[in-house]
């Protein structure tokens, strides 16, 4: 398995309608488009391909209103790959204009790897998202 994207990723959010605009911005910047959406879901894909895809699903059940906590079991954060430092900055500008919650503005993180440059932000549920550039030379870790 050498795919650089998962087959798919499903995330639960308290309200897909509310969360959709931010994901449209982020995933749209990454090349995804909104394929289908309703009150309880929003599906994003690439071009005319069915996979890979990212889907937002509406929370339900007894913990439907439970606040996300990335330090509890589950998703800590998701990072998609930027093509350059400028690409990270470009997304950051869009996020700021949109009014997204910025956790950490674009910065270098040498502790995470040579040339690691990333912006961290949160979706309306507080789910942590990241857009990261690492130079190809830093990817020969294995």
């Amino acid at each position, binding site marked *: 398995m*050498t*795919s*650089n*994207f998962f087959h798919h990723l499903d995330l639960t959010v308290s309200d897909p309608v509310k969360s959709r605009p931010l994901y449209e911005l982020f995933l749209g910047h990454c090349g995804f488009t909104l394929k289908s959406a309703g009150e309880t879901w929003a599906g994003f894909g690439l071009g005319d391909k069915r*996979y890979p895809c990212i889907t937002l699903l509406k*929370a339900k059940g007894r913990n439907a209103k439970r606040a996300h906590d990335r330090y509890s*079991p589950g*998703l800590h954060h998701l990072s998609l790959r930027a093509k350059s430092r400028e690409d990270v900055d470009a997304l950051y500008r869009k996020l700021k204009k949109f009014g997204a919650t910025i956790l950490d503005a674009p910065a270098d993180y040498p502790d995470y790897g040579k040339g690691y440059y990333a912006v961290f932000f949160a979706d309306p549920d507080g789910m942590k998202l990241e857009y990261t550039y690492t130079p190809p030379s830093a990817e020969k870790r294995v």
Partner: protein
Amino acid sequence: MTGARVHHVDLSIRNIAAAEPLYDLVLTHMGYVKGKPYPRGGGEWDLPDGSSIGISPTTGDNAERPHDRYSSGLHHLAWRAESRADVDALFAKLTAFGATILDPPADYPKYNGGRGYYAVFFADPDGLKLEYVWTP
């Protein structure tokens, strides 16, 4: 397309020692290689393209809170298998390991517009739902 690639996904795990062998089995099967440990415990597995999966220990007030995939957060994560036989091969390893199987390999004609969807669903020790799927 610019960033339509995963850089990494990090998961919070209650008991790293309990979960690590399963992640190692699954990710090694998929071609990941065990990489650097994290300072707080846990660590990551890397693909040759630099993408990675990391696990780190839970902490804070909700460190022991059971995962619920129907509340905000991860619902499930699916990796792409190379073939139906590849799905079966991972399943064989998972059963030998004693992993929690949610749904053994099966066809899901209702997915992918009926063009083929063959997948196994399983869970890590915290109940995080994972999937290995082949679509043509």
